């Protein structure tokens, strides 16, 4: 198995130390939100507010997904 696909088999352990690895996803989400809204917004005045909204949506979505998957894993254990 090439290392390229290991991230899908060995995901970030968010429930054990060191706990800072998942925090590194925040700059990634911010960049995605800013660039996406740069593309989508008609005027640049809208970008800061729209990008912040998208950033919060992505982060909340990831937290909810992680919680749901953690719950599923706990039930299956």
């Amino acid at each position, binding site marked *: 198995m*090439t290392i*390229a696909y*290991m*991230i899908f088999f060995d995901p*970030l352990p968010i429930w054990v130390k060191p706990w800072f*690895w998942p925090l*590194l996803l925040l*700059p*990634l989400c911010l*960049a*995605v939100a*800013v*660039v*996406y809204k*740069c*593309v989508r917004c008609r005027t*640049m005045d809208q*970008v800061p507010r729209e990008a912040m909204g998208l950033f919060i949506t992505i982060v909340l979505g990831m937290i909810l997904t992680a919680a749901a998957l953690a719950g599923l894993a706990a039930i299956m254990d």
Partner: protein
Amino acid sequence: MSEIRRSSVSLPAVVICAWIIPGGGYFLIGQRARAMTAGVAIIALFLSGIAVGGIRIMDPPGWGQYGYMTQLVQRFDRRRQQTADEYTRIEPSSAEESRDPSEDDRDQPSGSALIHQPMAELADKPWYVGQILCGPITLAASAVSISAAHPSAGSPGVETWPSSHSRSWEIGALYTAVAGMLNLLVIIDAAHRAGQVH
């Protein structure tokens, strides 16, 4: 009556400029605020990836662990007294081995793996497809990475700058690959805006 005209800048020029400098396509069609915002976000993400994972996360297809081009060799099978049908992939650890990767005089070096099996090399390092979309900054970082991978004169077989592993490598590769894919999004949008009728 409003004038109907297309952008005065040609579409290929916008696409090429957008690839060379992230956000450059927007700049060319006069959307400077959009160019600065997108360009800074993409370049910052790319450089953050290198900051997290080190320069060695730039791992171009066709180059091995020690920064020399991966070579293909048809080994001589002593038992069958003939050259093997299959190629053996060699990652040279020195300039000498890179020039002549054969172990036996009867081995047949076939040249660079990147030239003979480009898709296999690319499939081995698919994250580079995303990274290269960031433009020449990727090529420059790859050149530095290859140079940093060469073993120093005093310690053969040991990389000058070892590549990072595990999480830092994963996060670094993810940042740089996503930066490249965001640049693709920006290239497409800049081209679309350049082709719009005003």
